[in-house]
């Protein structure tokens, strides 16, 4: 094959590849570049006593009180803290939408999981494992995202998250039931496990703000420099006074 013909063939292949990238919106940089951030969220101050939530209805099944400790630690490491990168633009995160399905189950008159993370475009699947009626009312601020009943043995319901923000989950029938889903417009978010660890993958290089939210401890922010390659490890420590407010 003559050189000129081969070059034209290669050019056409590159053009087709470029066209595919443009048409599919595939963002090479978002997939292949970026460093993982790992670490722990730490609090070593006094742990407040657990909340004794009075059950207002269905006491035969739910009990008369529900004991709940929102601040769960293991050797100072905090569970259920949401760690996210702030200020990333939508361009960086294009086509990293996961469209995942997050399960939110009413079980033993408690939302499980109580603290969740999600991305815009993901779905929340609401279930009810209890032998009684629950309504699951998810709000963003004062606006209802969804408010649905699931009766005993009722079929699950899915709802797509359209807006980022802190979604508050309540049951209007059982006022002691409460949970949160923190929804983001990007995938750079993690929730700490039982040992307080988190991992955020493929964070673009640069100076970012790392933000931590915990139901009891509140919000903490710190700057973090992410290199083009290599790992970043960081422990984020809440001050002792975080539970005294």
């Amino acid at each position, binding site marked *: 094959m003559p050189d000129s013909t081969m070059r034209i063939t290669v050019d056409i292949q590159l053009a087709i590849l470029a066209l595919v990238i443009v048409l599919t919106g595939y963002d090479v940089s978002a997939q292949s570049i970026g460093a993982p951030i790992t670490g722990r969220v730490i609090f070593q101050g006094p742990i407040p006593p657990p909340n004794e939530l009075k059950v*207002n*209805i269905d006491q035969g099944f739910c009990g008369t009180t529900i004991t709940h400790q929102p601040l769960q630690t293991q050797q100072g490491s905090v569970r259920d803290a949401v760690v996210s990168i702030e200020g990333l633009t939508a361009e960086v995160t294009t086509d990293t939408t996961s469209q995942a399905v997050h399960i939110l189950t009413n079980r033993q008159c408690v939302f499980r999981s109580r603290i969740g993370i999600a991305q815009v475009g993901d779905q929340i699947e609401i279930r009810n494992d209890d032998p009684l*009626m629950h309504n699951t009312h998810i709000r963003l601020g004062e606006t209802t995202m969804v*408010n649905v009943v*699931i*009766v005993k043995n009722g079929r699950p*319901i899915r709802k797509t998250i359209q807006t980022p923000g802190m979604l508050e989950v309540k049951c209007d029938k059982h006022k002691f039931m409460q949970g949160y889903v923190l929804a983001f417009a990007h995938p750079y978010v993690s929730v700490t496990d039982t040992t307080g660890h988190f991992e955020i993958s493929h964070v673009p290089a640069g100076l970012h703000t790392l933000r931590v939210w915990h139901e009891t401890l509140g919000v903490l922010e710190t700057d973090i420099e992410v290199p083009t390659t290599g790992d970043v490890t960081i422990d984020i420590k809440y001050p002792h006074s975080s539970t005294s407010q």
Partner: protein
Amino acid sequence: MSLYLAITCIATSQAAKLDRSPEALEKGATIYHRACIFCHGIAGKGDGPAAFFASSYSAPRPKDFTRKDYKFRSTISGELPTDQDLFRTITNGIPGYMPPFEGLTETERWNVIAYIKTFSPAFQTEHVNTLITLEMPPRPATSDSIARGRMMYLELECHVCHGLDATGHGPVHTQGDLKDNTGLPIQPTNLTNLPSFKNGASPQDIARTILTGLDGAPMPSYASAFSSPDTSIWHMVNYVLSLSTATQP
């Protein structure tokens, strides 16, 4: 033939009658400033001068049109209302709260709907996707149907808010636990007083309210409790209708 309760997923074309031209919006604005502003406010936030007197300390307050959650819809919970939903509410009013505006011509009502929709960007960015439609007429209100409806009323635990006697004094309400999304206390509807039903009192209105819920209020959507096709919703409707001595307004 059984009633077909369809929960359909269709890309809904909004009302053909809605005119978004500058002229229509200008006419809509003129009507809004004449007829709606006193409750709903200049910017549509439900904070007009009459809103304070209408309901300062309890819900429902005048609708805040900048928020996307609407109580009176034919769409699933969390979605915007259709233009027809807005037209129905403006035409019929809300008993005890908002007068019917059937005195406006149909064109005038569509013009004011076009203007109201400019208050929330959601109407520009989101589409109405999922309608809840009732495609077959109600079942006859036989004693058997009413009895089955009462059983469903208990099984679906409507009584926890509306009460065993359906007067709106269920245990969750009497404990003071029912609040709207702004935190104001809200009273469940007295189901024995048909003319007070805010979302309408026809069989279709009642079925729609049960299936869609009232976003912004504690009343949830019961759509998942009914399979499709399903005729049992009409038993519940017949039971609710049987509770009132008053006739449909």
